[in-house]
């Protein structure tokens, strides 16, 4: 009796183990294949809420929740409420791909707003292509990409880097003759600096008047580099720094600049990754007059912007909450998506993708941005000087809107490429060989 008990005690547990594992598997499959009720239109929000990128991306998640909330107050879309599906890819690139797949195939979202770093976008790209969905990407990037399923609402290099350099070369910007291109060592700064180098040499700047410097992510000891910049800048010609330094490394960089006494009147630094959000973590008094180039600044005076800021601060219940450029990109992207969906009366990705080029939406700086056939948008470019209160004072802007150029004209590899998803149905049409590259044969 007892012996049989003993074996019986073992068998069920083994079976339990099996059952548990199987149950786990079925729980997964069950959760995935269970049909979702389709009484709302779902919008995916794919921004890191933990890990290193949370510092930048959390705000964008809040922005999306805010925009969706606003749209629902206006009655939703196509008579349905919008529903945000928020996931946390945790600053982990493969997890981005997994979460994108989850959003599209499991949650059946109609469009996804997300990503910050280029690598996260590169990671989700194959997923969006395979499952044929729509991604709105809100951050300035290095260009050299135009995909059918992605809409780039951030700046391409010609919408940020080149106008900023133009400004510094102008009389108003200080007639800079000598250039330091300082960046974090990854693809965006590398590409941007390659483009700028070619552009500057084309403008007659000599090679020895350009200094290029790369630092690792999160670099915190800037003493040597700042003193090198200082040395480089004391050669008698007006020197300017173009900074593509990313994220966290900016704070110690600016602190070192301030402490080594590099004033904007001596060596102005123009940054492409420093906005209101980054400055909120800094004592900006020593940085007075250093520059940033963006397509939006919170300080821009405009009724649309004022209203947006008011509602945003009410939504976040924080009267000091700042706004920034990638937020505006989401505002524009979301408005365009809503318009496109209303136009075709459907959230079907193919229809929306085809409808989007040509759609216009007001930006927050008083103009109207248009989605171009290359899936980039037209934007104004502003150069702002840092003020003591952590905001920017716009000192220069482009005359009109600048159309985003996916393929820069300043790199030999991409100057012959053209993107047109309306007529050519191709993101990388080679105007010399008359062929569309990158398509599976």
């Amino acid at each position, binding site marked *: 009796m*007892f*012996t049989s*008990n*003993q074996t019986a*005690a*073992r068998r069920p*547990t*083994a079976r339990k*183990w099996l059952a548990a594992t199987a149950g*786990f*598997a079925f729980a*997964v*499959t069950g959760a*995935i294949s269970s*049909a979702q009720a389709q009484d709302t239109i779902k919008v995916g929000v794919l921004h890191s*809420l*933990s*890990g290193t990128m949370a510092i930048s991306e959390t705000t964008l998640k809040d922005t999306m929740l805010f925009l969706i909330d606003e749209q629902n107050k206006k009655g939703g879309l196509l008579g349905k409420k919008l529903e945000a*599906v*928020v*996931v*946390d890819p*945790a600053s*982990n*690139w*493969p*997890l981005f*791909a*997994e*979460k994108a*797949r*989850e959003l599209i*195939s*499991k949650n059946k979202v109609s469009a996804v707003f997300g990503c910050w770093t*280029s*690598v996260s976008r*590169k*990671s989700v*790209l*194959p997923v969006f*292509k*395979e499952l044929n969905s729509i991604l709105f990407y809100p951050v300035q990037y290095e260009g*050299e990409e135009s995909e059918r399923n992605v809409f780039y609402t951030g700046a391409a290099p010609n919408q940020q880097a080149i106008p900023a350099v133009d400004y510094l070369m102008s009389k108003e910007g200080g007639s800079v003759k000598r250039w330091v291109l300082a960046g974090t*060592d*990854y*693809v965006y700064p*590398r*590409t941007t600096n*390659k483009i700028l180098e070619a552009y500057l040499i084309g403008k007659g700047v000599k090679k020895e008047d350009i200094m290029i410097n*790369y630092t*690792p992510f999160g670099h915190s000891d800037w003493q040597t580099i700042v003193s090198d910049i200082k040395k480089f800048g004391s050669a008698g010609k007006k020197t300017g720094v173009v900074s593509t330094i990313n994220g966290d490394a900016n704070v110690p960089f600016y602190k070192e600049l301030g402490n080594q006494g590099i004033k904007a009147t001596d060596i102005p630094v123009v940054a492409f990754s420093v906005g209101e959000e980054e400055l909120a973590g800094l004592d900006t008094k020593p940085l007075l007059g250093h520059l940033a180039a963006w397509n939006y600044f919170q300080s821009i005076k405009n009724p649309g912007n004022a209203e947006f800021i008011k509602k945003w601060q009410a939504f976040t219940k924080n009267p000091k909450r700042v706004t920034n450029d990638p937020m505006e990109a989401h505002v524009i992207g979301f408005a365009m998506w809503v318009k496109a969906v209303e136009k075709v009366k459907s959230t079907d990705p193919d229809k929306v993708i085809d409808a989007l080029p040509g759609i216009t939406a007001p930006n927050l700086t008083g103009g109207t941005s248009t989605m171009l056939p290359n899936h980039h948008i037209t934007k104004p470019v502003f150069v702002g000087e840092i003020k003591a209160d952590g905001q920017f004072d716009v000192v220069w802007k482009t005359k009109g809107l600048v159309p985003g150029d996916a393929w820069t004209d300043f790199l*030999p*590899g*991409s100057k012959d490429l053209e993107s047109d998803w309306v007529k050519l149905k191709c*993101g990388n049409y080679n105007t010399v*060989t008359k062929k569309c*590259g*990158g*398509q*599976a044969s």
Partner: protein
Amino acid sequence: MMTAHPLIRLLDRGSTLFLVLLGAFAIAIPVLNLLMPEGSALHVSTYFVALFGKYVCYGLLALSIDLIWGYVGILSLGHGAFFALGGYAMGMYLMRQIGDRGVYANPILPDFMVFLNWSELPFFWYGFQNFFYAMLMVLLVPGLLAFVFGWFAFRSRVTGVYLSIITQAMTYALLLGFFRNNFGFGGNNGLTDFKDILGFNVQAEGTRNALLVTSCIALAVCFLICRAIVTSKFGKVLIGIRDAESRTRFLGYRVEAYKLFVFTVSACMAGVAGALYVPQVGIINPGEFAPGNSIEAAIWVAVGGRGTLTGAVLGAFVVNYAKTFFTSGALAPYWLFMLGGLFIGTTLFMPRGIIGTYNNWRAGHADKAEARSAEAKAAAPAQPSAAE
């Protein structure tokens, strides 16, 4: 038990169960994915296929860590490096397969080299267009690194936390290196936009299922290799090294050679895991070298139960499923609390992990039952109710 046939020793009950389950998944998932119509209750979505494929690769990585941590006591915090190197080798093969279908239509250079104005292919990219060469590299590169690293480290008797820290330094140095664009591996963006593998489109459902099945087979084969190692006499020496390294050395075993061999085998397995992982997730980037990833992989092993092999794989599945589950929806911001809590909870309350605790409990249960039966026999005539 002492005289059991080697095959029986190799396949005890847990191992058999594990292999059967793995086999069942490897057959059931593709069948349910490909043959069942969409919308059918039994249909398994491609999302799940991709997910499961990823877990299997993580499982293999965990297995490789368990082999050296659970049986030799080496906690490598740099196993992510071997995983990533294997992944890069596979990624390089996949990049070369793109050929002139890249956006710049350059038949030789991958896209990232074209737009950064590289004029020719770096020498270390030669040969990767050949699948077999690439697969050789998947084993060779991590293996060689592990061999050289281990040869230095074990010979000079770097052990315990020191070894953990320098393996961490190794993966950190590689992380910084691969981030550099001048290194020739695509910098931060890594290698991506793969088209096909051995002529099959990597995006196609059939290929995905095939990759999943391949991963399961790889896991099963590696599992058997590990079992063979740990159940052999060789394995007993390893356990000896784990429990008392100096004594084993004094007994005349060449501890360094044993460690080096297992470390290298383990690195090769991690490399294979990485190579299978890359086509399934579609990207390899230096982030895989991050020390945090390697530490996380160690916790999978700890959760499942180290020194059990099956536990490592189970741990990888459980933790990664938890990650998938908790990084969506309302709980998203709290995922790191869960992960952190898991680290603390496992080490404090479940030092033997799931499998270890279960085995323990079962053993304890059996002991108790035995004790009870003995007690009952003794007490039976007087008080039968005392037994239950």
